């Protein structure tokens, strides 16, 4: 027994208070996750209507828009990486960063330069630590993103995409495609890091041909199809980013809940183990005391017997 009972008691105590903290975090994450899911559901009608409107315009007018045209010979790509602001969420941030790194490698393999944009403090810290340039980072909202943030990110990325290569003295970086890496929320148990290309837009979402009932009516566009498209597409992009942020928020909370649950379980195990060892040490101490007393009594008895 290397340590005394007292020291084991201290360890048990500290593990217990740690367990209280992780348990509290687990409960907080669990309650927030419901809210995050509700937010994601509340945002769904907007995305759905917007998608409908975009496909209506795209079907009935042959307008080419800057956001949908594939640039010839793309040389530069931007990647938006959606990570969390806080840690203690298991492998959440690191797995999305890993996915992003894979994408970076792939794009570099295709001969493209890569500009990084991050959302969430963890992503920013990761690249800062490795001294890699991040063009812009947004932080402070990862577990409850608002639409305003998504609009801001969207505006920045669209500006970068639309920027002209020749105009080199402007601050806006010119890129030919924009990718987003975020964590898709599949269920409470599984979240998977996903990379999608955001720009140039591919408007046709579903692959199957629409059946007759889904055929879109012949819209009148006001003021004109191209102008409607002009204001429609940036909003579409922003809503896609908002969707990614909401999914990421729900995933982050689910990952945190899972991580904190296993931390609580581990603390339980540890407490059990320490209690066993502490009890063993306590018993050993008692045994030793008894044998000391017995030994003492015997010695005393022997001494008395010898003197008589």
């Amino acid at each position, binding site marked *: 027994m290397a340590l005394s009972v007292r020291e084991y008691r201290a360890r048990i105590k500290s593990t217990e208070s740690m367990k209280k903290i992780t348990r509290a975090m687990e409960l907080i994450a669990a309650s927030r996750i419901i809210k995050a899911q509700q*937010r994601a559901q*509340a*945002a769904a*009608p*907007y995305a759905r*209507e*917007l998608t*409908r*409107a975009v496909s*209506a*315009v795209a079907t009935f007018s042959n307008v080419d828009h800057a956001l949908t045209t594939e640039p010839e010979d793309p040389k530069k790509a931007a990647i938006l990486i959606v990570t969390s602001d806080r840690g203690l969420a298991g492998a959440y941030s690191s797995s999305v960063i890993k996915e992003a790194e894979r994408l970076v490698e792939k794009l570099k393999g295709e001969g493209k330069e890569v500009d990084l944009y991050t959302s969430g403090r963890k992503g920013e810290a990761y690249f800062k630590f490795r001294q890699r340039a991040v063009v812009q980072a947004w932080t402070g909202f990862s577990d409850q993103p*608002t*639409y305003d943030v*998504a*609009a801001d990110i969207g505006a920045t990325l669209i500006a970068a995409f639309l920027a002209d290569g020749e105009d080199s003295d402007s601050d806006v970086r010119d890129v030919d495609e924009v990718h987003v890496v975020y964590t898709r929320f599949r269920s409470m148990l599984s979240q998977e890091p996903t990379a999608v290309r955001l720009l140039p837009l591919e408007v046709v979402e579903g692959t199957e041909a629409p059946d007759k009932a889904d055929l*879109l*009516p*012949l*819209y*009148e*566009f*006001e*003021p004109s199809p191209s*102008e*409607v498209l002009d*204001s*429609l597409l940036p*909003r579409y992009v*922003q*809503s896609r980013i*908002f969707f990614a942020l909401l999914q990421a928020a729900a995933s982050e909370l689910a990952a945190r809940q899972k991580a904190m649950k296993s931390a609580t379980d581990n603390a339980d195990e540890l407490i059990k183990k320490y209690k066993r060892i502490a009890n063993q040490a306590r018993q050993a101490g008692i045994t030793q005391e008894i044998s000391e007393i017995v030994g003492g009594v015997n010695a005393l008895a022997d001494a008395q017997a010898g003197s008589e």
Partner: protein
Amino acid sequence: MAGLSTDKVLQVELVAADRLVWSGQATMVIARTTEGDVGILPNHAPLLSSIIEGVVDVQTAEGETWVAAVDAGFISVADNRVSILSERAEMSHEIDLEKARQDLERAKEAGENDDAAQEAVRRAEARIRAVERAS
């Protein structure tokens, strides 16, 4: 007849970026597009139009009228379904009139030349108008 009744009312959805603000049946919708106000009655031709910061009036099938302030967005009409999409939308009873007035003051002070400031002015004005019209 079910078919007849759906011919006479509009199925309206007012959707903001982060929530569904209102959905239900209505007999008339008025919104402000970039070209001017449009009034939409049942059996309107399919329409897709940009709307600007302003007030949306809706007469519900129950005969009530409600007013909402919206930001720039879209209105789409097809098959008696009207969807109004806007990044932000507020029903008149959700608007804090005092706050809207303060926002208007602040936006006006911020400068008239700036595009963003003018947008903020229009937004605040729309909210105040929505409350005033509702009361």
